């Protein structure tokens, strides 16, 4: 089966897939210029080639009737980890040598705690990340994705959310150097306090500048001079700064924002603030420093299952009430800002969060700009993306109405000129009969012979399924899964020769055994799922 699947994937990528489209008769909202009714957008080989009302549609273009549809630039998520492989384990201190599995105790800045700036998002793209599809389905074509974890977690890249291979995703690298001021946790590792973290970051910038200066001087005068040491942190940071990556500095409350403004000025960096949720108090101060802001869309809210006796302070209550008005305050103060989803787990919650900001006074135009052109400008890619303009990357989102209207649905998305359908999430219609939770052995016969997989499923009370399916082909996270009555259905995405491929499992469950079919790339074959005893599972699929 493997060979045939690969062949099919190639066929689709090379020949079967159209590379030229014309969306005809739609409302086009280009951002940066006025919306146009009844317009046509032509895209070809990944770029926008024409926009207008009386266009001649090229003969090779696949025409899409845009009547009743609205075309927006693809949305950009200003700071996330969508599209990246799960973070490396550890990530704690590692010195110039690095690589040690067990993180040693960090005794000071020289041990480079929580520091991995050499990690580059562009090198960690994972086309099978299930979040890619859900973000696309919410209208996002582009992300600024960064590795997670640590004070210097690594370098962020601008990614387009579509492609066959990891390299297809990368629009710009490095785009940013995110910095956090986290502590090591506990008292044994440096830094164990906020002031220690700040001192550490300050020392790293000093070291980075020194390294550049020292290396330059040493090259001119090698004999008779003590050799400056090699340090991976200094070297990679100097390189990224040299490529004009912006530095992301955290600041959510007024206290943190003001501190970030001071630190950015002290460190003389091309810095961008992230957080910004108390912008309603300090927007004019941010404007005075001409600092751009990434606004966190995970608005503060009451803790779930909080102690009902513990009444929060008035300041906390005000923060929860006013945080969504921060974007409006930034707009009013003339601050350049973009939105980001980093704390939001599911893509469908992102636009409703933007809507909260609009309800709190943000103009819809500014909201759209903060999801398109502004992040493109902040990360230095506005020349190629962020708006619908001739020559820019064909990143488009097509909806059936106003983007911020609750009823509006995203109909299709273009990423780098490739068209993606938006699949409706599937929900069970009937209460589930039985429980699919547990480890399953799935057996089936492919054209290559007998195979088996292990499914580790967990079912919610409404029948929704999650979990993983593993075989020698890899492991996929279950999505769009449910058990409705005795009918089950779930999907996984597996990388087959670098190309993410959907595999669906459907059938009936008699309370004990699953019987049904597996479909992938046009092939279908029957399978049986049984719950093996622990002993037989141990020697099974893996």
């Amino acid at each position: 089966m493997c060979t045939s699947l690969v062949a099919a994937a190639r066929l689709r990528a090379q020949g079967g897939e159209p590379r030229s489209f014309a969306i005809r008769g739609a409302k086009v909202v280009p951002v940066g210029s006025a919306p146009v009714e009844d317009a046509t957008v032509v895209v070809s080989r990944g770029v926008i080639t024409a926009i207008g009302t009386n266009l001649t549609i090229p003969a090779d273009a696949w025409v899409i009737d845009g009547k009743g549809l609205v075309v927006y630039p693809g949305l950009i998520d200003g700071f996330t980890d969508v599209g990246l492989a799960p973070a490396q384990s550890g990530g704690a201190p590692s010195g110039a040598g690095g690589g040690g599995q067990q993180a040693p105790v960090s005794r000071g800045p020289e041990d480079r705690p929580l520091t991995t700036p050499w990690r580059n998002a562009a090198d960690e793209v994972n086309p099978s990340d299930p979040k890619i599809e859900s973000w696309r389905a919410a209208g996002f074509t582009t992300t600024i994705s960064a590795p997670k974890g640590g004070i210097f977690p690594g370098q962020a890249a601008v990614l387009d959310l579509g492609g066959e291979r990891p390299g297809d995703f990368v629009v710009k690298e490095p785009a940013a150097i995110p910095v956090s001021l986290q502590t090591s946790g506990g008292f044994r590792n440096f830094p164990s306090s906020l002031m220690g973290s700040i001192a550490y970051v300050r020392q790293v910038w000093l070291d980075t500048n020194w390294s550049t200066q020292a290396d330059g001087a040493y090259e001119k005068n090698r004999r008779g001079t003590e050799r400056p040491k090699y340090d991976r942190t200094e070297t990679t940071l100097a390189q990224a700064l040299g490529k004009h990556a912006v530095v992301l500095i955290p600041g959510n409350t007024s206290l943190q924002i003001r501190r970030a403004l001071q630190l950015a000025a002290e460190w003389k960096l091309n810095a961008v603030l992230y957080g910004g949720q108390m912008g309603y108090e300090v927007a004019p101060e941010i404007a005075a420093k001409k600092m751009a802001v990434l606004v966190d869309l995970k608005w503060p809210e009451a803790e779930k299952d909080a102690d009902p006796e513990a009444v929060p302070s008035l300041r906390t209550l005000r923060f929860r009430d006013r945080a969504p008005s921060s974007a409006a305050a930034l707009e009013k103060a003339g601050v350049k800002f973009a939105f980001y989803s980093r704390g939001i787990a599911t893509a469908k919650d992102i636009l409703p969060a933007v809507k909260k900001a609009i309800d709190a006074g943000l103009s819809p135009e500014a909201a759209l700009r903060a999801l398109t052109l502004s992040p493109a400008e902040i990360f230095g890619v506005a020349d190629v993306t962020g708006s619908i303009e001739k020559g820019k990357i064909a990143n488009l989102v097509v909806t059936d109405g106003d983007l911020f209207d609750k009823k509006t649905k995203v109909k299709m998305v273009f990423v780098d000129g490739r068209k993606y359908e938006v699949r409706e999430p599937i929900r069970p219609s009937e209460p589930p009969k039985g429980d699919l939770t547990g480890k399953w052995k799935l057996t089936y016969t492919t054209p290559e012979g007998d195979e088996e997989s292990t499914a580790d499923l967990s079912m919610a009370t409404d029948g929704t399924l999650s979990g993983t399916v593993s075989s020698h082909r890899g492991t996929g996270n279950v999505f769009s899964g449910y058990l409705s009555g005795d009918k089950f259905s779930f999907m996984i995405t597996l990388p087959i020769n670098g190309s993410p491929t959907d595999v669906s499992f459907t059938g009936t469950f008699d309370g004990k055994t699953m019987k049904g079919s597996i479909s992938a790339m046009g092939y279908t074959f029957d399978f049986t799922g049984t719950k093996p005893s622990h002993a037989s599972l141990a020697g099974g699929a893996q």
Partner: protein
Amino acid sequence: MRAWTNVAAALVAVVMGGTAICAAENAPSAILIRNATILTVSHGTIEKGDVLIKDGKIAAVGTSVKAPADAQVIDAAGQFVTPGIIDCHSHIAIDGNVNEASVSVSSMANIADVLNSDDIAIFRDLAGGVTVANVLHGSANSIGGQTIVIKLRWGQPADKLPFEGAKPGIKFALGENPKRSNFRAPGAPDRYPATRMGVEATIRGAFTEAKDYKRSWDDYDKKVAAGEKNVIPPQRNLKLDPLVEVLEGKRYVHAHCYREDEILMLLRVAKEFGFKVQTLQHVLEGYKVADEIAAAGAGASTFSDWWAYKVEAYDAIPYNAALMMQRGVLVSVNSDDAAEATHLNQEAAKSMLYGGMSHDDALKMVTLNPAIQLGIEKRVGSIDVGKDADLVIYNHDPMSAYAVVQKTLIDGRVYFDRDKEIAGRGALEQEKKELLAKEKKAAEKKSDEEKKGEKKPEEKKPEEKKPEEKPKPPQAEGVQGGAQ
């Protein structure tokens, strides 16, 4: 206690909301406090006296002071005016951990980086008459973080808290805390140092390193001055920079200590390396070595009657302050604690009982003496013409247990006004109630929507959207597939 906490919590919001800040910013350029008993600290008590404040400074002190026509008049008949209380040992207004406890020399950490203007303790201490605090790193390390003197300008952003021009400091600590006697985790290896000998060695080691570092910079400067090209500068070291400043007399040492032996040890080490210990903090056995402390010119900042909470505090006596003062040591009484700081006036007054200290000397221990210890006595610490108008108005003599702060002024602005704060409570309680009700309503609405959303799928049969849809060949319109 509980009622007080509520008041304070409610008050947070007043100021953070901006009303008090505005009030302060619109402070009149002249204020006349009239008819009060003025405890100047520097030159005795003035009965039925007046203090005139102009542009944040004390412009006149005496009886029958003439004020400009537009001056705001505060009638303080029957009340007492003192200089603002100065707390020489505080840990308020710090964001995050007070200790960078991972290393025993944490001089790279700087309290100035993490001042927290939102800390409610600022307000509470202000309500206790405190106007200036020496905000210190904790005592976990032989050489702790850099420290800063602040004014308690509640409602102002963090960068407006530092006392302008006050010399920065650094925290040292001796004895049980830096050797982690009372903080050992079972199974975990001990952090070095684990003995008083080790603490001494750690301090010596750090200053030896700092001297070497300073020399490497001096050499570099010389080479550059001589016109040498392509000289690699020494690498800046944020741990050693502040120690060089200590050696150069640009930074004060505030050393946490208890036992006589460790006090003498530090004074010896300081002499050897050529720096001065500005203050010995806690210094509960100071009465045993008062002559040596006085000879070294170190100040002593101690507790009134707080002891026996650990072995090294067993030999403490409440006469410590009075005894040290009798031997010529400059003594202050500090809080080390946000709650203790709200009644530092009473802490000072205890020395009138234990040791027979005079009323004025006792008051000095929380005003002029800590000002001298922090090198800010030209600006604050007494009621003298030209000094900052940092003043407290009490309803009784502050050395009395009945004294309650009525107003606290900093730079001639009223930052705490008891009557106004109490009057403002109702509105804040109301706002809080309304916000809680709003949140509750929103949560209910959301939960309703979610319930509706759950019913939705009944309208749709899953069969309508078959996940096993096969890729179709491209068509002119409604193309399927893409590059998934």
